[in-house]
């Protein structure tokens, strides 16, 4: 706009450029989007990312495999176990590990599903807060706190657990922890009903979410959307079913799908996913096998701590693994897994040494941003934050 001689504001062109973010509370991190506005309608949206770039892929090329695991936590920091799992599965594939002990897989599944519930709770709380429902945020944080406490019990850390390791998990589950998970499993379903009673039939919520940010099945596939966004558009695609890993085929659960592909459908899909994740945890607790919690091949996983004082061989293996690390055969691999936001996978190239030659993260948030900006075109300015919330981006894995 320019000021004319009469002192009146005059528009230079038909549209106005509006900058949103990166310091905006509703962009879920440091995400910037430049909106071209025609009145209240968004004409086009141009994403701008990179504010949280930490060079994790470059750093990983200079670290041992075991050192990379804590870095994967920091990518999708709302559900770290799923990143650990994707990384470890890929390294195990390169190592030629056929099968892990059943207990290891079950503990991995419990952690991943707890991570998924925790991540969806953060999404639900912040998404509702963006649209104006403050109470849900407080409720969701209350239950997430329980999950963080469980994380702390088993791994010593509340968020960046690094619990899943190459060849199994870091520590065996204690009876107290299993009791804690059991309590959470029994407590949680009533709480999901509570969130639903606040939102699902709430007329304001319906007004703000129904028919907004719509994406058809074909569009969602074209724009490489994944996870709940794809399923809300009517495509039944979940890597836990399509190519089961970590014994997901031993659990009974359903993949919730919806047809309209709008913000409301994504909400319904994620809420139902929380229930299904709780089902999986319950079944895993009921059928948790006894036995080792990691591979007994000490060339890959550390020997049990208490054997270090009695067995020379264990001591040597421990020393070798900690000082030199595991040597991964030459080759490349990619294992797609179902994270809280969609397809998470690492493409790893190994040159046969103890450091990965190239690590590439396939991040659902990163792949989802162009499609998200497509959704914003034609929407009202007030719906932009609702659309960002419904994709559930995490900038840690976008900028890496």
């Amino acid at each position: 706009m320019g000021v004319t001689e009469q002192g009146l504001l005059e528009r230079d062109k038909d549209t106005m450029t509006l900058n949103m973010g990166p310091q905006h509370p509703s962009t879920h991190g440091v995400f910037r989007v430049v909106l071209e506005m025609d009145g209240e309608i968004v004409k086009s949206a141009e994403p701008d990312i990179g504010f949280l770039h930490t060079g994790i892929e470059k750093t990983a090329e200079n670290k041992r495999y075991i050192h990379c695991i804590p870095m994967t936590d920091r990518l999708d920091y709302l559900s770290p176990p799923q990143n650990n799992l994707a990384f470890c599965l890929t390294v195990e594939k390169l190592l030629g590990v056929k099968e892990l002990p059943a207990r290891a897989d079950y503990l991995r599944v419990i952690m991943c599903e707890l991570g998924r519930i925790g991540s969806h709770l953060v999404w639900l709380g912040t998404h509702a807060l963006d649209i104006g429902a403050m109470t849900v945020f407080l409720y969701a944080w209350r239950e997430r706190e329980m999950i963080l406490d469980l994380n702390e019990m088993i791994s010593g850390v509340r968020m960046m657990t690094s619990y899943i390791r190459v060849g199994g998990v870091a520590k065996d589950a204690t009876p107290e922890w299993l009791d804690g998970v059991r309590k959470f499993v029994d407590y949680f379903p009533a709480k999901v009903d509570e969130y639903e009673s606040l939102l699902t039939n709430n007329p304001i919520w319906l007004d703000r979410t129904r028919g907004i940010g719509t994406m058809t099945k074909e569009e969602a596939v074209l724009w490489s959307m994944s996870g709940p966004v794809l399923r809300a558009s009517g495509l039944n695609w979940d890597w836990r079913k399509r190519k089961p890993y970590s014994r997901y085929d031993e659990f009974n659960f359903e993949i919730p799908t919806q047809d309209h592909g709008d913000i409301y459908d994504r909400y319904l899909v994620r809420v139902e996913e929380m229930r299904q994740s709780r089902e999986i945890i319950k079944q895993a607790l009921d059928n948790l096998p006894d036995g080792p919690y990691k591979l007994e091949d000490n060339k890959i996983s550390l020997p049990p701590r208490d054997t270090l004082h009695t067995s020379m061989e264990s001591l040597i293996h421990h020393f070798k693994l900690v000082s030199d690390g595991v040597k991964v055969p030459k080759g490349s691999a990619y294992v797609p897994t179902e994270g809280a936001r969609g397809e998470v996978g690492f493409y790893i190239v190994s040159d046969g040494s103890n450091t990965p030659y190239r690590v590439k993260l396939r991040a659902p948030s990163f792949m989802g941003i162009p499609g998200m900006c497509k959704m914003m075109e034609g929407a009202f300015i007030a719906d932009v934050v609702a659309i960002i919330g419904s994709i559930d981006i995490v900038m840690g894995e976008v900028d890496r």
Partner: protein
Amino acid sequence: MTNEEIREQIEAIFESAIQHSKVTAHGELEVRVAVDQFLMLMAYLKQNRDYDFDYLSHITGVDYLDMDPDREFRFEVVYELFSSKKDHHIRVFVDLPEVEPTIPSVYHLWHGADFPERELYDMFGFIVMDHPNMKRLIMPEGWEGHPLLRDYPLTVEEIAFSHNPDHKSELIKTQEDVKVDPWA
């Protein structure tokens, strides 16, 4: 269709442009194609109704400078394709030379290629032809160099303030300089 059938069909149609193809021990189909026939192959994979490779999972680049300095081509680009309707999966490799590594964009086939292709330019300096909005993605505009190249220095340690006038900024180039190995 099984992976083996797809592999045989592609081999038969593209003949010499397919430099290498195999079904791995994990049952994954991998194809290495010459860059001049690359776009043809990708369009064929997308549009053939028997394959239905309609989903682009990710694109990534690899720089083989340290691993294999004698490799004919320094760079490699990897495309991972899935089918949303069928259980198909293919990984397409393209080799790119060190001088002017140029690859055509697949944005018009899969719009999801938007960010990954910009990242290819940003991180490796590959020239992606016909991309609708080609500019840096993660690094700021005006940044020099492409960080994921193997000869890009790991970091430059800027010393902000020192009482010692001889202090100089230190350039860390390789892993040997970083000394991550406590036992070395």
